[in-house]
């Protein structure tokens, strides 16, 4: 197996230039977004089948009186979870783990059932009505196979998006976090160490995860948690229904039709 790779996205370095979005769209030949005024610089809106990178503009309140509101930009992407909800529910095995330990949707296998969309807690996967399949970031699988960096990390002018072997990136992130804490940015934290077995695209953020539309560590749970209670309730109901049937249908005085 090839080396496990990852993205480390440092939101404190992101300037919201969206070079990552453009590079992703160019390399993967994704369609342009329709021109739409959203009342914000975030004119992408969300990750979906045509947007595999999305620069969020997160408004934060500050302690500085003359600048009460500040932006934190975050280039969001598929997290390529170690324990991926989408991969867990996919009934066709269209979603696979690649030799780089990334999560990939095989477009020639996916039949568009959309179970993965209901499962992804990050709202990453979108349904492409033209191809009839679910789509998301491929981690530039084709580039990885040719020893190239993913397009977004290559284009990022501030090194906010870093690509490399996952264990090295985790060390880089830990050092950066130390630096920020020393500089007084006490709110800085790493998101993606523990969630879903460790995210292969993880983030350095400066607010609670929910502010970036990331589930908290406690909420980072897999769909399969509901299998046992769901079937158990069904089984108990079945037993009660059988008892009800026994009472209602039991033999009474035999009558001829």
């Amino acid at each position, binding site marked *: 197996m090839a080396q496990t790779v990852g993205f480390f996205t440092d939101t404190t370095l992101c300037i919201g230039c969206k070079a990552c979005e453009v590079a992703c769209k160019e390399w993967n030949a994704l369609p342009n977004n329709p021109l739409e005024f959203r009342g914000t610089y975030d004119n992408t809106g*969300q990750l*979906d089948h045509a947007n595999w990178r999305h620069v969020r503009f997160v408004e934060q309140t500050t302690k500085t009186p003359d600048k009460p509101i500040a932006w934190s930009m975050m280039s969001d992407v598929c997290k390529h979870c170690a324990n991926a*909800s989408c991969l*867990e*529910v*996919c*009934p*066709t*095995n269209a979603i696979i783990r690649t030799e780089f330990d990334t999560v990939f949707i095989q477009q*020639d*296998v*996916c*039949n*568009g*059932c*959309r*179970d993965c*969309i*209901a*499962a*992804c*807690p990050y*709202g990453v*996967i*979108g*349904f*492409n*009505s033209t191809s*009839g*399949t*679910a789509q998301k970031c491929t981690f530039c699988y084709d580039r990885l196979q040719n020893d190239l960096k993913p397009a977004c990390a290559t284009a990022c002018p501030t090194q906010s998006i870093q690509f490399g072997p996952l264990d090295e990136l985790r060390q880089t992130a830990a050092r950066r976090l130390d630096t920020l804490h020393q500089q007084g940015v006490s709110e800085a934290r790493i998101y993606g160490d523990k969630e879903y077995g460790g995210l292969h695209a993880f983030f350095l953020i400066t607010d609670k995860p929910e502010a970036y539309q*990331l*589930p*908290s560590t406690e*909420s980072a*749970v897999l*769909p*399969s948690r*509901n*299998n046992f209670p*769901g*079937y*158990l*309730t*069904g089984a*108990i*109901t*079945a037993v009660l*229904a*059988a008892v*009800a*049937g*026994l009472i*209602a*249908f039991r*033999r*009474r005085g*035999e*009558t001829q*039709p």
Partner: protein
Amino acid sequence: MPNEHFVVPPHWEWYILLYFFFAGISGGAFVIGTMLRLWGNRVDAAASRLAFLISFPLLLICPILLTLDLGQPIRFWHMLVDVGSGTPAFKAYSPMSLGVWGLTLFGLFSFVMFLAAVGEGGYLRWRVLAGAGRVMSSALGIVFMVIGAIFGFFVAAYTGVLLAVSNQPVWSDTWTLGGLFLASGLSGAAASILLLSRGRRESAVSDGKLMEADRYFIILELVLIVLFLITLGGLVSKVLGGGWIILWLVVLIGTLVPLVAEWRPALRRQVPPVVLPVLVLVGVLALRAVIIFSAQA
């Protein structure tokens, strides 16, 4: 406290709603047919036969609806065969995968019992069908029906588990959906048999028993609806708020009115016979609609 996820809706809409509806009634009808055969009198055989005659045709609609809902309908078989390895695509922890296999196997039982019911009822005078009809009453037939009924229970219930095994708010925040869909599917199946037994003297003799069973199924359903709302906690406003309350009113009318009427024969005699089963069926559909659509709104 519900988990906070940022899921986008999968846009499971009308095809899925109708699939859940027909799967619930088909599975429920098979179960009721089996229970009537197991525990009922000889005169209940006609109602049991009717149940099996309903189960299979309704089940036939299900794969059509499921296939139409796919983005790539021509690849429906990818649910059954792993394209990469050529082996069966089976994931025990994916309710959609388990459900496809459950539907396929239940289809076998439902089809055989449909043929046996046709044979026993003498609707087609083919020798092979008459033989199958006779097997229905034998010990082998009973064993076959009981195994089929287990699959029937599964088909009616798993659709709820399918919704729950996700990270979609509402669906994934409750453990009640499997039981709720099963209870309501059984109620809908009893109502369907009652509706179709109108004007058929031989199956109408079981109407009293079916109404009694339906009362119990409705009570189960109501208990599970209350549990469903309780387990949602703070998310309850998502399913009760806005226009969804209208669908809940339809659900309540489809459960409480038949429940009260079936308990009070004097009241029941005042309404035309088809009204109560129709109310139940509309309620069964509305329950699934409100759960499917409100969570995705």
